[in-house]
């Protein structure tokens, strides 16, 4: 894309997509979180020690603060909570705590890509 302003390769960017907002029933926070989770899933490098019982699904460890940081400040703590709740209710993400380290309270998220794509296609067809 032609850039008007200087674009460093290190520059972190958050996208708010119209299609994501639609698929999340207009929930802006959920669409931002979906965008962040997609980005993190794409750039995820698996740790072989973390793979449990042949489960090779990508689980993203992310705290609320990290979500806020990754949103470039677009999210607050409450918006993050409500956005994640929306995503779980819509069936776009799964969540769990660490399966072995019980003391580890950081929740892990798995993005159900197929589920999101299915909804996106449905919206596109309807339009």
């Amino acid at each position: 894309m032609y850039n008007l302003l200087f674009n460093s390769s290190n520059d972190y960017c958050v996208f708010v997509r119209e299609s994501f907002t639609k698929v999340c029933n207009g929930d802006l926070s959920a669409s931002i979180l979906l965008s962040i989770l997609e980005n993190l899933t794409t750039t995820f490098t698996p740790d072989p020690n973390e793979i449990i019982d042949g489960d090779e699904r990508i689980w993203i460890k992310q705290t609320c603060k990290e979500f806020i940081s990754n949103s470039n400040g677009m999210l607050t703590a409450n918006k993050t909570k409500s956005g994640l709740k929306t995503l779980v209710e819509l069936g776009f993400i799964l969540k769990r705590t660490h399966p072995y380290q019980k003391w580890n309270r950081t929740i892990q998220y798995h993005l159900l890509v197929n589920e999101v794509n299915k909804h996106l296609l449905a919206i596109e067809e309807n339009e």
Partner: protein
Amino acid sequence: MENLITRPEKDFFVALRNSFVNVCNGDLPAAIILSILENWTIYKIKNIQQNKIHNEVLKKQGKKPVDVGDVWIYKSNSEFRTDSLGFLSKNSVISGIKTLLDLGFIEKRNNPKIGWDRTLQWKVVPEKINKCICHLPKQEDGGSYLGKAIPKNTSKKLLKDKRSLNNDNSEKDNQTTTKVDPVLGKIDSVNVGKSNLVDIVVDKSDSVDPILGKVDSEIYNQILDNWNSNIKSNQIKGVSAHRGLQSKLKYDMAQYRKTMSISEAIVNCIDQGNTVEDINKAIDNYFRVLSSESFWYDFRYQNIALFLHSEKGVCKFKNDSYINTLKKKEADSVDQYKKLRLSYDPVFFKYNSSNILDTNAQTYCGVGIGICKGRNIVRILDEINSYAECGNLDQSYMKMLEETIVAGLYQKISLDVLRGMLDTHASNRVFHMPKAEIL
């Protein structure tokens, strides 16, 4: 990068870049608006290029060329809200635009062709934004802020971090290559391969502040230190010393609610054509004038922002010729009597037009001071032109004068002047024979 989730065609999006948030001092709405305006400007530039090609074709066909267009973006508040996908509210759009205008990142105008059109038009100033972005500190982890809190709105932390990081970076990489469109004058990113772009070099060696964009923050601190040290050394009262560059200060005597930080005030002052040396010289001169008794000037600027912002501040005090005009004249310093007396309006509220004491006023002085005394004093005072002449007065006159003034009957001169007259008279009265009573 491969996308996991499918993208519908013509999917509209808002991209919030971390660098935009940083250059907008953490103002999120401003960063989003900047992103929206950038996208629209790119769209406009593409349109212009397309129109130029189209015009060449029309020219060959001998037809009239179409209007190429410009990069001004026509956009109302509600359109900004729509473009932000509902992230921005009405007020946040207003505040965001204000921030961008204050930072000089965008320009605004009314519709030049249609006078009644009140929707403003906006133009991005890429040169200024690119300058700020180029000088932003690099992220250690490749740009992502994973696990790090984004600093909230503007504030000290951001400025402080940037100041320190800017100093570190200034030595390492003094030059950054960016590309400029020679036709449109826009700076493009390095990684975009456009054939018609010309390499330019942005020199960082002049240590530009990443946020305020003019001079290094060390120089700001130097100016502030100069101000504070002058107050301390000269023991000036009524002028405030300041702790940090981010102190919000009143900068206009008339608009007491408006404030700006010291660094902003310094940048504004520099933008008006003053150099850092001029500012330091003006501060030194100002305090020299205030502390010395040989100058009549005694106006106190309560803070540094007022001094920097005022038209009679730096602009005047940097000139030595102006300082000379503030010196007291010799005659003034020798004898203040006439000056003080003339500045003191004669008030005859207790005397009528014939210099006769009103009967109502007699209660103030009692029986001791009569009509004749009042008349005599007025006559005597009219003849006196300086303190020195008081020595020629009779002792009894002086006594009368003192009684009358202390009693509040005659307000032509103040008690200070009277004191001076009495002192002078006391030193000279040996030449006159004292009289017990005049009446």
